[in-house]
């Protein structure tokens, strides 16, 4: 079985001669739950964008489930929660409408089949928003909105779930609830999860592996191996 994510000697910069990531070697097995952490501007979001094929490495090779990331074919199998909590639309989109947009990756045109509707409903139930399925997102709390976006990512039944700073603008209680939800989804679905955040206090007890990024990978291992440096990853390489 191929690795879920594989970086080999990767270098990347948005401008020539100014790399934001260099010498990145990383292997993530299918089914792992990994936190990518580090200071702002350290390159962790860039690393995620390279993983998803949204950027091409300047040097080196990025592979996703054995295929080059930028030409990966089963893109519907990638669930992605972008680095923002706001909807792209100004109109009042309901939870179900937002989650259905996630299923669109599997069936972009024509009518949804029964299996598509079932997948949407299951995703809504999994994140505990069944009672609120017809409520506009604008009338939900920040934590509930995050759960709706996670359901959107789950609706396509992904192999990889990538979350970029999912706790931005969410209170501590909701951060804890989100961590528990992700741990449960990981247990129940066996999906590979990449969780990118500069604040990972809430997730520390549920992830199996922590990767600290500051232009290069400065730590890669169990969170338990780095307790005293937990809240300041920039010290990890000192």
């Amino acid at each position, binding site marked *: 079985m191929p690795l879920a994510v594989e970086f080999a000697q990767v270098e990347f910069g948005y401008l020539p001669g100014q790399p934001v990531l260099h010498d990145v070697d990383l292997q993530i097995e299918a089914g792992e739950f990994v936190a990518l952490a580090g200071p702002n501007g350290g390159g962790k979001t860039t690393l995620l964008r390279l993983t998803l094929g*949204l950027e091409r490495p300047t040097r080196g090779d990025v592979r996703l489930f054995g295929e080059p990331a930028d030409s990966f074919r089963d893109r519907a199998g990638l669930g992605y929660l972008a680095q923002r909590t706001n909807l*792209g639309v100004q*109109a009042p989109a309901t939870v179900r409408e937002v989650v259905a*947009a996630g299923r*669109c990756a599997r069936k972009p045109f024509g009518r949804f089949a029964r299996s598509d509707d079932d997948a949407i409903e299951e995703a809504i139930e999994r994140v505990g928003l069944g009672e609120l399925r017809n409520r506009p997102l604008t009338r939900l709390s920040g934590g509930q909105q995050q759960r709706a976006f996670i359901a959107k990512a789950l609706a396509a039944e992904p192999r990889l779930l990538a979350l970029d700073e999912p706790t931005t603008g969410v209170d501590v209680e909701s951060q804890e609830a989100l961590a528990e939800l992700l741990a449960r989804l990981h247990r129940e679905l066996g999906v590979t999860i990449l969780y990118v955040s500069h604040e990972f206090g809430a997730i520390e007890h549920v992830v199996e592996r922590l990767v600290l990024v500051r232009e290069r990978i400065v730590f890669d291992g169990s969170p338990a191996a780095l307790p005293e440096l937990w809240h300041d990853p920039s010290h990890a390489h000192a």
Partner: protein
Amino acid sequence: MLDLEFMRLAFAAGAIVGVVAPVVGFFLVQRQMSLIGDGIGHVAFAGVAAGYLIGVSPVWTALAAAIIGAVGIEWLRAHKQAAGDQALALVFYTGIAGGVVLISAAGALNANLFSYLFGSILTVTRRDLFTIALLGLGSLVVVAVLLRALLAVSIDEEGARVAGLPVPVLNAVISMLAALTIGISMRIVGILLIAALMVLPVIAAQRIAWSLRSTMGLSIVVGLASVLAGLTVSYYGDLPPGGTIVLAATGFFLASSATELIRARL
């Protein structure tokens, strides 16, 4: 009023425009590109002027110019040659400047030009109605087929890109539909005011709607009602229909804002 054939033609064409404009405008508003219709409209003005200059029907030259303008805006945005509003400004000002130069060269600063800019209830012919019906229906079919993908891109463009949806193509489709809408609407609403009919019904509807689906449905109702009310006032008041239609849409926007305010206080 409906005893007169030109009014029947105006109402029939207006009803089609009243439905199509908000449906296309829905996606422009959601992409925060509400002013793209204005930009394309001003390029269409250059097209009208070019039609006068070379002796071809201004309707067709305006439609061709609108499509070129739409493609230009989308290309500038997609290739990051300019931010969305800068791309719009570039096309907007080039269009109006080109229009003024060409219309002056053609010596066509007259009342007929006024009807293209602000609409006229006297100018819709049977042939126009056939073209408007054909292109309008075609636009609605395209939206119906692509609806779910277009909504997915509106809700989360980056997520749609990751999921492999053809985002640049879908964005280009919306811009092309905006150009077509301007082309079919210029006889009724006029190229300088059609953008308002694409946007105002949508922003009126989303103040009182409860879902994306209801927003689109209410937008169509407001668009249709604005056109019918505006044409009626235009007939009895001897006023340009573009102005009366857009003012009717503004009235609906104020009414929906008041409804929202009252609902919030209850």
